[in-house]
């Protein structure tokens, strides 16, 4: 049986600039996989490429046995992938509730109440703020909303792009706990992009290191944490 997500030899370009140079990444069912790398390494590009925006110029992306490399974004999403993207991209002029409803676009409306309840249990703050406009939320609240919105579609694969960016340590801890909880309780597969390599590698089953658009290291979270080159490049000074 093949993996839930299989990225093989993917190359992505922005005009003439090559952002991904033959990337191989896989995510098994129920796994948390993390992707770490410096600014501009191509992490966000990889998450967006697997959602078809931009499309890969070469290579193949398979989700649940289906080739999705050339599919339009909305069809890929409808197969059961959700992304909390870089910069959060909350709909600023919509309320928290409307943002969550947008997250449920592809879901069966019969699940809506149950899913909403789950998101509110995970992030009680969102429940208090449900009538407030997205653009007026604090950064941490927006991050919770971005993750909550992604969960509303009941994805089989959840893509998280730097969920801890710019947040206070306490909020980061909350968010990481939430990720763990989602994974354990729902068995949801998660591909997590992080700058916060220490937290991410401790949480993840496996990890990849992306440098200049290519994978240079792969292994279990524990293995990568122990590698001197990972410690030197991504862990010094920060946790």
């Amino acid at each position, binding site marked *: 049986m093949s993996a839930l997500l299989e990225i093989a030899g993917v190359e992505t370009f922005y005009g003439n600039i090559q952002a991904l140079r033959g990337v191989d990444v896989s995510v098994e069912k129920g796994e948390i996989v993390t992707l770490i790398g410096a600014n501009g390494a191509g992490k966000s590009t990889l998450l967006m490429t697997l*959602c078809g*925006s931009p499309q890969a110029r070469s290579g193949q992306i398979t989700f649940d046995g289906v080739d999705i490399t050339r599919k*339009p*974004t*909305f069809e890929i*999403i*409808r197969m059961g992938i*959700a*992304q909390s*993207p870089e910069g959060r*991209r*909350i*709909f*600023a*002029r*919509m309320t928290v509730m*409307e943002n969550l*409803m*947008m*997250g449920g*676009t*592809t879901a069966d409306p019969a699940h809506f109440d149950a899913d909403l309840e789950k998101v509110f249990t995970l992030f009680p703050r969102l429940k208090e703020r449900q009538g407030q*406009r997205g*653009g*007026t939320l604090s950064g941490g609240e927006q991050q919770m909303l971005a993750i909550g*919105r992604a969960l509303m*579609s009941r994805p089989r694969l959840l893509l998280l792009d730097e969920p801890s960016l710019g947040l206070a340590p306490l909020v980061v801890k909350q968010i990481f706990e939430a990720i763990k909880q989602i994974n354990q309780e729902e068995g949801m597969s998660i591909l997590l992009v992080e700058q916060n390599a220490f937290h991410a590698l401790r949480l993840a089953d496996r990890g990849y290191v992306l440098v200049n658009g290519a994978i240079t290291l792969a292994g279990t979270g524990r293995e990568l944490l122990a590698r001197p080159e990972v410690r030197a490049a991504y862990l010094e000074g920060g946790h």
Partner: protein
Amino acid sequence: MEYFVQQLINGVTLGSIYGLIAIGYTMVYGIIGMINFAHGDVFMIGAFIALISLLILGSLGLTFIPLALLIVLIVSMLLSSVYGWTVERVAYRPLRGSFRLAPLISAIGMSIFLQNYVQIAQGARVKPIQPVVNGGIVVMESPNFVVTLSYMQILIVLTTLALMAGFSYLIAKTALGRQQRACEQDRRMASLLGINVDRTISLTFVMGAALASVAGMMFVLYYGVIDFFIGFLAGVKAFTAAVLGGIGSMPGAMLGGLLIGLIETFWSAYFTIEYKDVAAFSILVLVLIFLPTGLLGKPEIEKV
């Protein structure tokens, strides 16, 4: 006083027609950030479809007016929707992601094409039609002036109110409306939530066209004459209405339409009728200079 009230009634009627057209400008601008320059011509096409289907129904011997009007309404909304959809497919979608002026140029081309197409198919002369809805109510009377509110005017204002209420509800409360607003705010994120952005944009053009065709039908019933060129003037005025109200804002389009209708009517009533079009254009220029976001335009206050 009586004269004033009569002008008020006439102005509100005209304003309703402009408001219906203005909604199409504002919705399309909201979602793709561009003006649909062929929108006025879709209004004109709607008027022609209404006229032709009225004549056909008449020749078939359908004399029950309410039913005839309902059929005409549905037929012109459906057929004009096809035109609105085609405008997007031909003039806008292939050029999305191209430089900003390209789709404007192709839309103007589309506009000229539609005008010529109707001119050739229907002839260049004005098309008259027998009054369909006759009669009215006397609202006020004085020895030398009678204020009437015609049934046609009542019909126009009520239809407009009903459509605007329906569309406001659709935008604010339904899944389709939320998807449209999502595409307006962040198209890429909308697609990341599984929304078919292309389809949503098409639907927006279709909805605008359907409303414009209702305006066209009201126009032909109210004035009794149309030609292939009515889309240009009505289009520019409705566009002015949309800008005055705040482009991108639905309530703004309605308010703007009402104001332009009133201004134009009072201008012709109290100053000179020759310059009534100049009034609308002057407002456009003044608003663009002094109030570019319009009366109800969205202030950009959000932090993101």
